[in-house]
């Protein structure tokens, strides 16, 4: 009897350790994408990172405890052009041998105008950390949810293709990143 009560106590303590309204989600990697659009010779193209991991703690009713932590395998870059991918991973661009991972972590969530949610965060890419703002669209469906995030960033802020490749008419500076994450409740 005491043993059983003890277990109950441990379970209750663990339960209280997690904020009441926080919701942890597991990434369904097979149905999630991390894409970006940029221009090359003023022609728009889309690329993606095929491997990334995300720890998502999100409850639309409790933004104070929300947190996204995303790690991206830079070497999984795919722009549907093998020469471009090969070049992009090299020292002039992502420098994947030295910086194989990019990391994004949120610092604060805000309820923006029109019911939109934005997340402030820090993106570390090619060894450079810069603030990045995400637009967050969250749609729960029972034990699953879709999370769409969009961010605009500038490649030159992170030293990607600086120097001889800096000319934006060759490679656009602005990059729009879009994450489409399929989530499952971690503790349904």
């Amino acid at each position: 009897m005491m043993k059983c009560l003890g277990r109950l106590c441990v379970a209750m303590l663990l339960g209280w350790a997690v904020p009441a309204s926080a919701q942890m989600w597991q990434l369904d990697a097979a149905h999630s994408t991390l894409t970006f659009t940029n221009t090359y010779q003023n022609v728009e193209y889309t690329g993606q990172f095929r491997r990334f991991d995300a720890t998502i703690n999100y409850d639309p009713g409790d933004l104070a405890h929300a947190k996204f932590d995303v790690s991206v395998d830079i070497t999984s870059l795919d722009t549907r052009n093998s020469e471009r991918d090969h070049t992009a991973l090299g020292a002039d661009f992502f420098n994947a041998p030295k910086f194989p991972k990019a990391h994004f972590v949120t610092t604060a969530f805000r309820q923006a105008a029109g019911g939109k949610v934005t997340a402030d965060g820090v993106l570390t890419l090619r060894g450079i950390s810069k603030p990045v703002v995400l637009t967050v669209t969250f749609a729960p469906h029972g034990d699953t949810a879709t999370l769409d995030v969009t961010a605009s960033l500038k490649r030159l802020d992170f030293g990607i293709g600086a120097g001889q490749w800096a000319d934006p008419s060759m490679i656009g500076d602005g990059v729009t990143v879009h994450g489409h994450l399929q989530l499952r409740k971690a503790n349904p």
Partner: protein
Amino acid sequence: MPLRSTEQGWGALVRAFHWLIAVLIVAQGVIGLSMVQMGLTPAKVRVFALHKSIGMTILALVLLRIAWRLTERRPADPPAMPRWQRRAAHALHLALYVLILAIPLSGWWFNSTANAPLVWFGWFDIPGLTGGYDPVWKPRALLLHQTLFWILVALLAGHVGAALWHHFGERDDVLRRMTVGPRKQNGEVR
């Protein structure tokens, strides 16, 4: 110089097409063979873009040239020319037309399978021929583009050689009527 071709010689428009396309093809060959040797720099990207733009220009000019040729007669072959030579010359000309159409098309195809941009002299975007990146067909398209180019080089050697042989060997009007125009009956250049 009449615009249209006659029984004696080629019209101005045919000659303009011939020499404009000839100059562009020579430039294309030099650019194409040089650009693949370049290290990857923005300059290389620009030279590739130039090669693609000139190639699409040649394709458009060849289509216009063929359309114009279909409305025209061709000048008569020199009377002294044996039948096998006439046949060989006409077959060679037909092959050249096929190649100068097929080479830009194969380049366009290769560019499409590589999912590379194609912006005509930085002016407007030309869409791809296929549904985007295709790593299976891409090397085949490149091989076709290169093979057709070397066949063209070989046939052009025959074409130029035959033109010079007509001019300096046979001393007929075949080369002259594509350049300054045929001689008049009394030997004057018209």
